[in-house]
């Protein structure tokens, strides 16, 4: 009887345990050191080797919305923070309309955080970053951007309507060859494939980094192991591992969102594993009991 109960626990009890195990560490502010991941280390190293005096920019395509915010936001924020710390100018854009408000808030919030951490230093819109906003067209937009002789005239204005020609950090930017790196974060299947397929010209292709959700890791891994991307952030665990590298480099840095979410997630995962073991135990023992009685 007890074994059958173990094999058929009411789903509401499971929900309750998941809720408590997931949220309690986050509410209590418990943070555990993330496990180092080679893919995150490769991501970190790719940004570390960038040159901030070349006049070339980085493009961040933040193709995610509220649904995958928990995984993609910490990844994008950590990448933005790293670029800002290294003073590498970047343009942030999206192919996904629902991501647009995040493009405005993320760089601004991180600049404020860094300014608090390093009083006297300043990160400014137009000099350190530019928000291009939502650009419709998917692969057509990517193809057009890659082939454009002048990226500024292709994009025309930033998200607030300011002509890109008057943005200081884009003064020397013309073609794709002035883009040293592309970072794309998304939870949409196939979205990154569009950048891989079309963001190139005959004789140049910028390095590419990718942040994916846990569910799309198998797809993203194929690009990493083939060398088409030089770094990968695997879900929130990848973001946390990347944040750990940033914290090691900057000891005053406070743990970011990825680190906190990853801790809560770990407790929830342990909880689910516990239920799976209990379920199997109940299943085997009740089957054994039935076998004995028959």
């Amino acid at each position, binding site marked *: 009887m007890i074994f059958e109960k173990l094999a058929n626990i009411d789903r509401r009890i499971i929900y309750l345990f998941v809720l408590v195990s997931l949220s309690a560490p986050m509410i209590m502010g418990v943070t555990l050191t993330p496990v180092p991941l080679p893919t995150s280390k490769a991501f970190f190293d790719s940004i570390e080797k960038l040159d901030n005096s070349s006049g070339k920019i980085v493009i961040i395509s933040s193709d995610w919305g509220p649904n995958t915010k928990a995984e993609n936001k910490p990844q994008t924020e950590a990448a933005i923070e790293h670029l800002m710390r290294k003073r590498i100018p970047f343009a942030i854009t999206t192919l996904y309309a629902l991501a647009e408000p995040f493009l405005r808030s993320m760089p601004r919030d991180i600049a404020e955080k860094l300014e608090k951490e390093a009083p006297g230093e300043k990160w400014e819109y137009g000099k350190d970053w530019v928000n291009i906003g939502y650009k419709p067209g998917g692969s057509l937009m990517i193809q057009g951007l890659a082939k454009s002789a002048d990226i500024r005239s292709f994009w025309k204005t930033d998200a607030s309507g300011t002509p890109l020609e008057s943005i200081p950090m884009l003064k020397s930017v013309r073609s794709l060859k002035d883009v040293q790196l592309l970072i794309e974060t998304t939870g949409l299947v196939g979205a990154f494939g569009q950048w891989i397929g079309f963001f190139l010209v005959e004789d140049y292709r910028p390095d590419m980094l990718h942040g994916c959700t846990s569910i799309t890791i198998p*797809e993203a891994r194929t690009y990493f192991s083939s060398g088409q991307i030089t770094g990968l952030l695997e879900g929130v665990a990848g973001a946390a591992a990347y944040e750990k590298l940033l914290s090691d480099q900057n000891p005053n840095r406070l743990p970011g969102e990825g680190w906190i979410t990853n801790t809560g997630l770990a407790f929830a995962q342990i909880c689910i594993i516990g239920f799976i073991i209990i379920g199997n135990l109940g299943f085997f023992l009740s089957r054994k009991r039935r076998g004995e009685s028959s």
Partner: protein
Amino acid sequence: MNINYRKELIRLLTFLSGLYFFLEFLTPEAWLVSAFGKDFSIYHQRISEGFILVGAMAIFLGVINLVRFHAKAILKSRKGWINSAILILSLVVTLGIRSSEVVLQESRVNALTRVANWSKFVGVIKEDFYSGENKNAPDRLLTLTSDIEAFEKEITSEDNVFYSQDSSAILEKLSKSKLETQILRLAYERLDNRQISTFTDTLSKTLEESRQLAFSASQNKLDSSSVKIASSMIFEAFFVPLGSAMFSLLAFYVASAAYRSFRIKTLEAGIMMFAALLVVLGQIPQGPLYIYSGLPGIREWLLEYLSTPAFRAILFGSMIAGLSMAFRMWLSLEDSPLDSEAE
């Protein structure tokens, strides 16, 4: 035999559009340049924009369809009509607020363009003066002064996009630029080349500083406008939490489904469950939850040498299927909705 011309026209357009993008992608750029005599990317950009525009039109069709369907449900008081009413109301409110935001933004951009053009205008006056195209530089500078004066009056109005706490700083810069315009005008009248060059640069710099101040003042004004606050509220207070909550429900379903379906009934199920557990445990943070230090390495091995090759094979298969599907659609071999319409 009856020929459905509408259908045939769509087939033809589909084929030609597909052919264009296919050839454009494969043809080397140098060939295109030699064939057209100039950079083909300019034409391609316009054509691509045209296609994007056609795609955007589909959104309007979607909205019309949505409104028709739900309006019918409300009018006929069908079961769940209240949900339809909420949907229509949300659509109207969001559309109204977002449209007002776009209008506000457009007026700001137009006003900023006017300010940005001043420094360009000063440069053009100098170029025209030396090229002999238009020697009437002092009069043109007078026009600039009067435009700056008109602008000064406009920004003191509370409704103006530049009116904010920073307005006094902009006014200060504008007064300075008016003074510098007068000095430059005198330099043109005296035909003093050295002074023309120096004062053009000084004036351009001041006008650029005015533009930057106007930019931040108008941004602050826009951010504090009620339309912008309402728009942000719709996104941050409704859309983000609702969207996140919908996706978060998956966590609970996955937990319940994992508990019920991960039963070791066969050897294959056992292997699958064991591999999944190793992958999950391999990314658990260090500390009290850390079971064995070799787990991250095992996770990496499983993902790199088992999962990735298997997924690559699946990807190749699906890509080939996708390619054949694309060819079928390109050549209109797939069943079209128009076929069923004809039937």
